C-alpha cells in the first residue's frame, strides 16, 4: 500500500480525500495556489506545497508543477479529485512517465470514454441502449433519416460541443428549414457544416450509476443516483436511490454499468450517466472517469468509502466488497450543494468573508466543506461552499430531516443557496419525487 499520496485539488474534495488517507494511515500532501494559503485543505494535510499563482492554469492545472511537487515530496501516487486534471489523459500519462501512480483509470480509458462518439460506440458494443440517432452525419436523405428516428429530434453540429449549435425540431414541416439553418450555423461557428440527428427526450430524468472495477476484472455497481434537479446543466440536488426506479429497473441499470466497465476494460471508479424518459426507458449519455461531487449519497446509503476503493484499485489490490454488498442499501440519502450564489439575482456569484458559519449536525447529517468563520472566499475557483448530505430511513424521513438541517444552517457575510434548497424541499413536485430536468425552470418561474 502507498505511504504518501499527493492530492492535486483544493477545497472540500481535497479534504474529503485526506479523511480517507488518515483513516488508512497514509500521509497526505496538499498543493495550493497563492490565493489558497488560508484554505482549510492546506491545514489538514501532513505536508503542503505552493505550486503557483492564483490562476488555475498556472497552479491546479499546471502538470509539471504538480508532478514536480509529487517528486520532491516523495509521493507515490496522485489523487486528482474532480474537475481540474481529473479527466486529463495527458496528466494521467505524465504521472506514469514519472513513476507516479495516477489514482484513476488509464490514459487510454479516459480518452476513449471522454469522447462522446467513442464512448457511445463502447456503449453499443456493451449492449447498452443509446439515444436513437444517426451517429454519422446526415446525408441528402435527411428527411427519411429523421422519420426513422421519430420526432421530436435534435440537430447537433458534428464539430460542436457544450450544447452549442443544437436545434430542436418538433415536426416534419420544420425540418428542411431547421436543417439548413443548423448546417450554415455550424459552418460559420466550427468551419464544418456537418450535422447529425438525435432523438430529443423532453425533460428527462438524469439517472447515473456508480461502478468500480479492479485490475483483476472484478466489477461492482451501486444503486443509482438521481440528479434531475439541475440548473443550466449544473446539478443542485442529488439523491439515491431514485424515487422513479424500481428494484427491477435498478438491477438492469447496474447490469448496464458493469457491462460498460467490462467492455472498456476499465480499471478504477467511474460513473455512467443515463437519460430516462417518462416511460422509464433509459439511454446512455456519458461516462465520468473520476470521483463525482455527489459520491457521498452513494457512500451514505451503502456504508462504503469510494475513495478507499479507488486507492485499493490503484494499488493493485482487490475491491473490498462483493457485487451483492455494493447493490445492497439502507434508507435514502439526499445531497444539497450549497453555493456562494445569490439566486434572487440570477445566481450571481457572491464573494466576501464568511462572517458566521453555523453548520447543521445531529443524526443522519454529513457536511463536506472547507468553510470556517473568517475565511475569505477567493474569486478564482468554483462557488461551491459545502455539500449537505442527509440520510433518512426512507425518502420521507430524509426530506423531514433535510428541512430540519437546512433550518439549522446559518451563514452570513455572503449569499448562499441555502434558502433555495428550502424552497426545493417544500415544493410538492420534489416531495412527490416526480421531478425531471425541467423542474428548476418551473420552480424559479
Amino acid at each position, binding site marked *: 500500500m502507498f505511504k504518501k499520496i499527493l492530492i492535486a485539488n483544493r477545497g472540500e474534495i481535497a479534504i474529503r480525500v485526506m479523511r480517507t488517507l488518515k483513516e488508512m494511515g497514509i500521509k497526505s500532501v496538499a498543493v495550493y495556489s497563492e490565493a489558497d494559503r488560508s484554505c482549510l485543505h492546506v491545514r489538514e494535510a501532513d505536508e503542503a506545497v*505552493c505550486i*503557483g499563482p*492564483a490562476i488555475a492554469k498556472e497552479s491546479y492545472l499546471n502538470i509539471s508543477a504538480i508532478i*514536480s511537487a509529487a517528486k*520532491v515530496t516523495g509521493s507515490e501516487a496522485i489523487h486528482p479529485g474532480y474537475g481540474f486534471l481529473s479527466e486529463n489523459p495527458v496528466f494521467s500519462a505524465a504521472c506514469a512517465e*514519472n513513476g507516479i501512480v495516477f489514482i484513476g483509470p488509464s490514459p487510454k480509458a479516459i480518452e476513449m470514454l471522454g469522447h462522446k462518439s467513442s464512448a457511445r460506440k463502447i456503449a453499443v458494443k456493451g449492449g447498452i441502449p443509446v439515444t436513437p440517432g444517426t451517429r454519422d452525419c446526415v446525408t441528402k436523405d435527411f428527411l427519411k433519416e429523421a422519420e426513422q428516428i421519430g420526432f421530436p429530434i435534435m440537430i447537433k453540429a458534428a464539430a460542436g460541443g457544450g450544447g452549442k449549435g443544437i436545434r430542436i425540431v418538433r415536426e416534419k414541416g420544420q425540418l428542411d428549414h431547421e436543417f439548413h439553418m443548423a448546417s450554415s450555423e455550424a459552418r460559420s461557428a466550427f468551419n464544418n457544416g456537418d450535422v447529425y440527428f438525435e432523438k430529443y427526450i423532453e425533460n428527462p430524468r438524469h439517472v447515473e450509476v456508480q461502478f468500480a472495477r479492479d485490475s483483476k476484472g472484478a466489477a461492482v455497481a451501486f444503486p443509482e443516483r438521481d440528479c434531475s434537479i439541475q440548473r443550466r446543466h449544473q446539478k443542485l440536488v442529488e439523491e439515491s436511490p431514485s424515487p422513479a426506479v424500481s428494484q427491477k429497473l435498478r438491477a438492469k441499470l447496474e447490469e448496464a454499468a458493469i457491462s460498460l466497465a467490462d467492455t472498456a476494460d476499465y480499471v478504477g471508479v467511474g460513473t455512467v450517466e443515463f437519460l430516462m424518459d417518462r416511460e422509464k426507458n433509459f439511454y446512455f449519455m456519458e461516462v465520468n472517469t473520476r470521483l463525482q461531487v455527489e459520491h457521498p449519497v452513494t457512500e451514505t446509503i451503502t456504508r462504503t468509502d469510494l475513495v478507499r476503493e479507488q486507492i485499493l484499485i490503484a494499488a493493485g489490490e482487490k475491491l473490498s466488497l462483493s457485487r451483492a454488498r455494493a447493490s445492497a442499501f439502507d434508507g435514502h440519502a439526499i445531497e444539497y450543494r450549497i453555493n456562494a450564489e445569490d439566486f434572487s439575482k440570477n445566481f450571481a456569484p457572491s464573494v466576501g468573508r464568511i462572517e458566521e458559519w453555523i453548520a447543521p449536525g445531529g443524526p443522519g447529517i454529513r457536511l463536506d466543506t472547507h468553510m470556517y468563520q473568517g475565511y475569505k472566499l477567493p474569486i478564482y475557483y468554483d462557488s461551491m461552499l459545502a455539500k449537505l448530505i442527509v440520510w433518512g430511513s426512507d425518502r420521507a424521513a430524509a426530506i423531514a430531516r433535510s428541512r430540519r438541517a437546512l433550518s439549522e444552517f446559518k451563514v452570513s457575510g455572503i449569499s448562499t443557496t441555502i434558502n433555495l434548497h428550502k424552497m426545493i424541499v417544500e415544493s410538492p413536485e420534489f416531495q412527490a419525487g416526480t421531478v425531471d430536468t425541467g423542474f428548476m425552470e418551473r420552480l424559479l418561474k
Partner: protein
Amino acid sequence: MDVKTLSRITKWMESTDLEEITWKNGGEKISLKVNNSPESHSKFSSTIEPVASPSIGIFRFARPGKAHNLKEGMAVKKGAELGVVEVAKDFRPVLSPISGCLKIISVEDGKIVEYGQPLFFIEPR
C-alpha cells in the same frame, strides 16, 4: 462614471481579492487599484526586495556542468540569472528583478523550493 458608482466599486473591490480593475466604455477608460494588504502594526519599512521562486522544484545556483560565483554583498544587474529551479527536467531561471546589492542568499543548492518562496534579497541601488 460618477463618484458614487466609483466609490461603490472601490468598496466592493475591498471585499474581494481583486487588486486592480480596468473599465472601458467607448473612449472612456477607468483603472482602479485597491490596497488590500492588512494594516501594518509597526513603523518598520524596508526597501530590500525579495526574489521569489518562479516555480516549485529543486533550486540550483547554476545549470548542470556550470559554476557560479554568487556571494552576499556583491552587485547584481537587473535580469541577471541568480540560479535555476529544476522542475520536471526543465530549468526555470531565477532572474534579478532589479539592479542592486545582493544582501541575503536565503536558499541552498539542491533544496526544494515552493512557488513564490523568497530565494534572495536585493537592496536597490
